[in-house]
């Protein structure tokens, strides 16, 4: 009896004929996958090439040290900080709304809700993430701002506060859902050990479950921050598009995203310095969201590794 060679586990008669169709399909499917790599390369290429040209005309020092952003006026200034401060201000307001609500909502869904209640409430909360952002913008401008003006008379018609609050509602499902995943990943033995020591539910949640889920909650917060930084339409509609180096939420501000939209709506010819500013701003925005996304993914990997 012939012995099979170990390097060739299948006798050649069973290997079948060559199938060029199969190989072609594999190549085709691989191309589909590779498109996402090309998308990333495309984004980087577009942003970098235009940004490099932008910085050949505007020195880096002006971009990072000037405190005014007025590229569309006769007296041009290219300081990015008013846009960054506007972005961070609105994002901070959004997080102040979404953090407590999102985390407590996640605690309810993961620790209190029966499977049936959870089956109703969780999709309902996810609806919040499915509402188009123009609709939230309308809500901020037409409903929330007039309401807030009754409470704070000095609030201007376009302000950072109202879009910030509405954006908080928008990012809440993101924060709640990642936090809930993290809470559910906490092993039930930890809870049972805590109950066994005589602790009731609230101390168990606050001192055992939430601290063990810390990295997941941090991932949720940072992911929410990244979403807030990149959000566009709510701020375009309700914040007034005024580059303003301020941390006063009552004033009108502009964010990086609103500037890009504002320039796109005008007739700025391609190839001009004004046109390149939107790519320089886009690059700054991309770097900020990329860094926050990376941090969030690292933290999330840590808690998913626990499972």
């Amino acid at each position, binding site marked *: 009896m012939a012995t099979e060679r170990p390097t060739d586990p299948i006798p050649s008669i069973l290997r079948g004929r060559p199938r060029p169709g199969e190989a072609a399909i594999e190549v085709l499917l691989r191309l589909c996958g590779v498109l996402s790599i090309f998308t990333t390369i495309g984004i980087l290429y577009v942003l970098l090439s235009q940004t490099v040209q932008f910085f050949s005309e505007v020195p880096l020092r002006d971009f990072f040290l000037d405190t005014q952003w007025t590229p569309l006026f006769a007296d041009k200034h290219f300081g990015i900080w008013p846009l960054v401060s506007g972005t961070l201000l609105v994002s901070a307001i959004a997080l102040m709304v979404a953090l407590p609500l999102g985390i407590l909502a996640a605690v309810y869904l993961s620790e209190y809700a029966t499977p049936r209640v959870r089956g109703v409430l969780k999709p309902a909360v996810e609806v919040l993430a499915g509402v188009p952002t123009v*609709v939230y913008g309308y809500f901020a401008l037409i409903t929330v701002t007039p309401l807030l003006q009754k409470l704070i008379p000095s609030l201007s018609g376009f302000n950072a506060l109202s879009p910030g609050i509405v954006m908080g509602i928008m990012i809440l499902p993101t924060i709640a859902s990642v936090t809930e995943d993290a809470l559910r990943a906490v092993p039930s033995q930890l809870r049972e050990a805590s109950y066994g020591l005589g602790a009731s539910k609230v101390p168990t949640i606050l001192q055992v479950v939430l601290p063990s889920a810390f990295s997941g909650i941090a991932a949720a917060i940072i992911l929410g921050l990244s979403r807030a930084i990149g959000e566009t339409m709510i701020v375009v509609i309700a914040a007034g598009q005024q580059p303003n180096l301020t941390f006063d939420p009552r004033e009108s501000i502009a964010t990086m995203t609103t500037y890009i939209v504002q320039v796109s709506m005008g007739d700025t010819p391609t190839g001009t310095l004004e046109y390149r500013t*939107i790519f320089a701003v886009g690059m700054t925005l991309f770097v900020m969201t990329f860094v926050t996304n990376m941090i969030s993914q690292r933290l999330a990997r840590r808690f998913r590794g626990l499972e």
Partner: protein
Amino acid sequence: MQRKRSSRVGETIFKYVCLASVIIPLSLLVLLFGNVLMDGLGRLSWQFITSYPARHASEAGILPGLVGSVYLILIVGLVALPVGVGAAIFLEEYATTDAARAQYAKGPKRWFGLLWNRWLANLIEVNVANLAGVPSVIYGLLGLEIFVRVVGLGRSVLAGGLTLALLVLPIIIIASREAIRTVPRHLREAAYGLGATRWQVVREVVLPSAFPGILTGAILAISRAIGETAPIIVIGALTYITFVPECLSSEFTALPIQIFNWVSRPQPDFAINAAAGIIVLLCTVMMLNALAVLLRNHLQRRY
């Protein structure tokens, strides 16, 4: 005893604070829907749906926006769906360790090819994860440079559709991968045992079983694409347009852009038009989302 009772009260209060954190955002959602309905329902009529935008709010309608949105959705569906599902099949069926072992069994010469597939798959995974977090305006900048200028499509509905297709691609890939992953291994092995090739297994076994999950992901992606505004403003969709796009190279507008245009006008009459437009947009998006949830709950096969 006293202390025990107060802590029990604390327990109950905490539970209701948590419940309130779920209820408050939901009631805001109801408030939002109620507000939009009250403002816009009176304006909603057949005339509103079949008219062009006009200088007088009461004569204006959303026809070009609706038609533009339909064009965009068709392009997104035709481009992003096959490519996204294809990428997911590659990642789950061709570049996994299981697939690697099967290839190795055919002979060590294939070893290099599958190492290359694994390496490529890792790179694609990292890319998809990052692309899912890229803000939508950035996709607008990509579309503006690549599709509008380099490829030379101009500010056309095709350029807008392709931009949105790239935007929703990560959503489709992630959802399809999850759907494919729920197909149990023994089904594949049974098919291989009958002598099926890899593609036959994918076509006859994996895709039919994963179909409901893939469809759910596709519907969610389409509903996201309908509501996206910023990227197509950036590539240059017009905000005031009095014609219906006739071909793929026509200039266009879309429903959310028409709404945005009306919201940003100071006259309150146009805000009413915006509300009526929002009702149409929300109804479409919410119906699609509900359909996706229903499919997920009822069609998904349990093994």
